[in-house]
C-alpha cells in the first residue's frame, strides 16, 4: 500500500475526535467507555503509521508495533476495570446514566 502517511494520520485524527465527542456528549456510561476505546485505537493507528513511515527495506522500525501492543494491553485492563465499576455502580444505583452519578459533588 502506498497510501501517504498523511492520510493515515488524518484517519487517526478523525477517529480520535469522534471518540472525544462521544466521551463528552453521551450519557450512557458504557458508551463513554467505548469512546475511550475508540480514542486508544486512533492512537494505535498513529503509532503504526509512524512506524511504517520510518521503516526501510532492511531496517524495519518496530517501535510502533511494540508500543501498540502495550497500548492494547493497557486498554484491555482499563476496559475490564471500567466495566467492573459499571457493574458495581449499577448494583447501587440501578442506573448507568452519568447524569445521576454526581455524589462526589460539593
Amino acid at each position, binding site marked *: 500500500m502506498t497510501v501517504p502517511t498523511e492520510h493515515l494520520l488524518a484517519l487517526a485524527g478523525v477517529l480520535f475526535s469522534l471518540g*472525544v465527542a462521544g*466521551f*463528552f*456528549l453521551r450519557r450512557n456510561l458504557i458508551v*463513554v467507555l467505548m469512546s475511550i476505546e475508540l480514542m486508544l485505537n486512533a492512537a494505535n493507528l498513529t503509532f503504526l503509521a509512524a512506524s511504517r513511515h520510518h521503516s526501510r527495506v532492511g531496517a524495519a522500525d518496530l517501535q510502533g508495533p511494540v508500543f501498540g501492543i502495550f497500548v492494547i494491553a493497557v486498554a484491555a485492563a482499563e476496559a475490564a476495570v471500567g466495566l467492573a465499576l459499571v457493574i458495581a455502580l449499577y448494583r447501587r444505583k440501578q442506573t448507568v446514566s*452519568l*447524569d445521576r*452519578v*454526581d*455524589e*462526589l*459533588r*460539593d
Partner: protein
Amino acid sequence: MHEATWLVWIPLLPLLGAAAAGAVHFLALRSRARGADATGGASGAGGAWIAIAAIGASFLLGLRGFLALRGEHAEALRSPTWDWIDVGGWSVGVSVVLDRLSSVMTLVVTGVGLLIHVYAAGYMKGDPGYAKFFAFLNLFVAMMLLLVLSSSLPGLFVGWEGVGLCSYLLIGFWYAKGWPAEAAQKAFVVNRVGDAAFLLGMFLLAGLFDTLDLSSLNAAVEGAVRDGHGPQLALAAFLLFGGACGKSAQIPLFVWLPDAMAGPTPVSALIHAATMVTSGIYLVVRLNPLFAASPELLFFIGLVGALTALVAGTTALVQRDLKKILAYSTVSQLGYMFLALGAGAWASAIFHLVTHAFFKALLFLGAGSVIHGMRDEQDVHRMGGLRRHMPRTFWTFTLGAAALSGIVPLSGFFSKDEILFHAFERGGAYYLLWAVGIATAAVTALYAWRMVGLVFFGAERFDAREVHPHESPPLMTVPLVILALLATGGGLLGLPEVLHAPHLLHDWLHPVVERGDAILAAATGAVPVASGASAATEWLLLVLGAGIAFAFAHRGFHAHRQGTASDERFAARRPQAARLFGDAWGVDRGYAKWIVQPVKIGAFLVAVVVDQFAIDGLVNGAGNLARSLGQRVRRMADGSIASYGLWMGGVTAALALAWIWIG
C-alpha cells in the same frame, strides 16, 4: 573628692520606702476585698509612716553630707562609680555626688518634702489609695534625688524622666474623676517635647566630648570653645534649655502646669512648686560653664523667663480657682529664676529657688487647708471671711503671700530683689528685662494680696448651712507653721552686700559657679557679678522694690477685701483684657487649634480612612476575594464526570493548540 559609700542611701531610702508603701497598699487592697475595714485610712496608714521615715532619714543623711562638706572644706563627696554603659571605648558611669550645689538641692527636696509628707498624712486621710499615694510620693523623692545627685548627664536624665513619670502618676491620682487623667496625659506629653530636646542636646554633647560626666563636661567647655566648637556648644545648650522649658513650665511649654492642679494639693505643693519644676533651673546652674559660653543664648533665656513671668502673672490676676492662681504664680516665679540665669546670676537663681520652695509650698499647703475646710470648694469668689474660722491657716497663708509679693523683710523680698538688681547691673538690653521684672513684681503683689483679701476677708460668700469651714488638724497646721517660719526668715541666707552682711548662699555656691562666671566675663567683657554697680544704685533698687511691693500689695488687698466687686468691674470695663489674661494669653487655645486639633484629625484619618477602609479593606478584601473565588471554583466540582472530562480535555486541547501555534 572624698569617697562616701553611704551617699547611695540618700536616693535609695525613699526608693525602698516606695516599695514598702506599695506593698502596704496591696495588702490593704486584699484585706478590703475580703470585706475588712471599708476605709483605706485604717489599713493603709502604715504606708504614710514608712514614707515619712524614709524621707526623714534621707534628710538626716543630707544634713550629714552638708555638715561634712562644711567641716572638711571638701569640694564634693562621691560614692563609688557603677559602670552603666560601656560600649566601644565610650563609657558612662553613675555615681552619687554631693557637692555644694546638690547639697542645697537635697536639703530643700528632703526638708520641704518631709513637711509635705507629714501634711499629706493628714490631708489624704480616708482616701482609698492612701498607701499608694505615699508610695508614689516617695518614688518621686527618690527620682528627684537621683536627678540632683547624679554625677553624669544620663543619670540625671533618668531622674528627669522619673520625676516626669511620678508627676503623671500623681496628677492622675484621682483618675476616676476623668479630667485628672487628661491632665496627667497633657503634662506627660508636653514634658516629652522638652525631653526630646534634652535628649538631642545630650547626644550633641556626647558627640563633642568623649564623656558625659558632669564635672568633666564643665571642665572641657573652655577647651572646646578655643577649638572653635562654640556654635555647637550653643546649640547643645539651647536644646537642653528646651528641656528645661518643658520641666520648668516656661513659654511655650507651661500649659501643663495649671492643668496639673487636678492632682491632690500636697502633690501640687511638692512637685509643682518646690521641687520638680526647679529641675530646669538646677540643670542650667549645674552646667553653667556650658551656658556661659553663649552669652546670646543667656539673654534669650532671660527674655523667655521675663516674658513668662509677666504673662503668667497677669493670668494669675484674673483666675477664680485658688489653685490655678498659685499654679500661674509658680510659672511666673520660675520665670524670675530663668531671668536670673539669663543675667548670669546663678547663685541668685538658686536663692530664689530656695525661698520660693518655702513660700510656695506654704501657700499650696495653706490652700489645701482652705479647700479641705471648705469641703473641696476652690472658687475664691465663693469664699470670704475665712480668717475667723481658720486662724492658723490664715496667718501662715498671709505670711506666704507676703513673702511671694516681696514684702520686706521676708525671704521673697531679698531673693527677688537680688535678681532684679543683677539684671539691672548687666545693663544694655538687660534693662528691658529688668523693666519686665519690675512690672511683674507689681502684678505679683496685686494677685497675691487679691488672694488674701478674697479668701480670708470680707463677707462670707458661701452658704454657711452647707459648708462648715473649720481649721485643719495639727498634722496639717504644724508643717504650715514651720514653713511660715522658713519663709519669713529665709532671707537671712542671702542678705545684700550693702547691708554689710555675708551672702551665705553666694559664698557657699561660689566654687560651683566660678567657672561659669569666668567664662561669661571673658565672653562679654562684663565684670563678674556682685561687684559691679555702686552701692547707691543698689540701695535705690532695694527701696524701689520694697516700695512697689508694698504699694501694689496695699492696692490689691483693699480692692478685694470687700468682695468680688473689683473683679466684676474689671471684667465689665476691660473684657478683652480679662479674656486675654484669663486664657493665659491664648497659648493653650493656640495649641488646641494648631496642634491638638490637626493631630486629632490626622489620627481620625489614619484610624478610619487608612486603617479601617484601606488596610482592613485590603485584608478583608483579600479574604473575601479568596472566598468568592473559591465559591466560583467550587461550582466546578459538580460530580459530573462529563464536566470533569470536558475541563481536562478542553484545557489539554487548548494547551496543545497553543503549543502548536507557538512552537
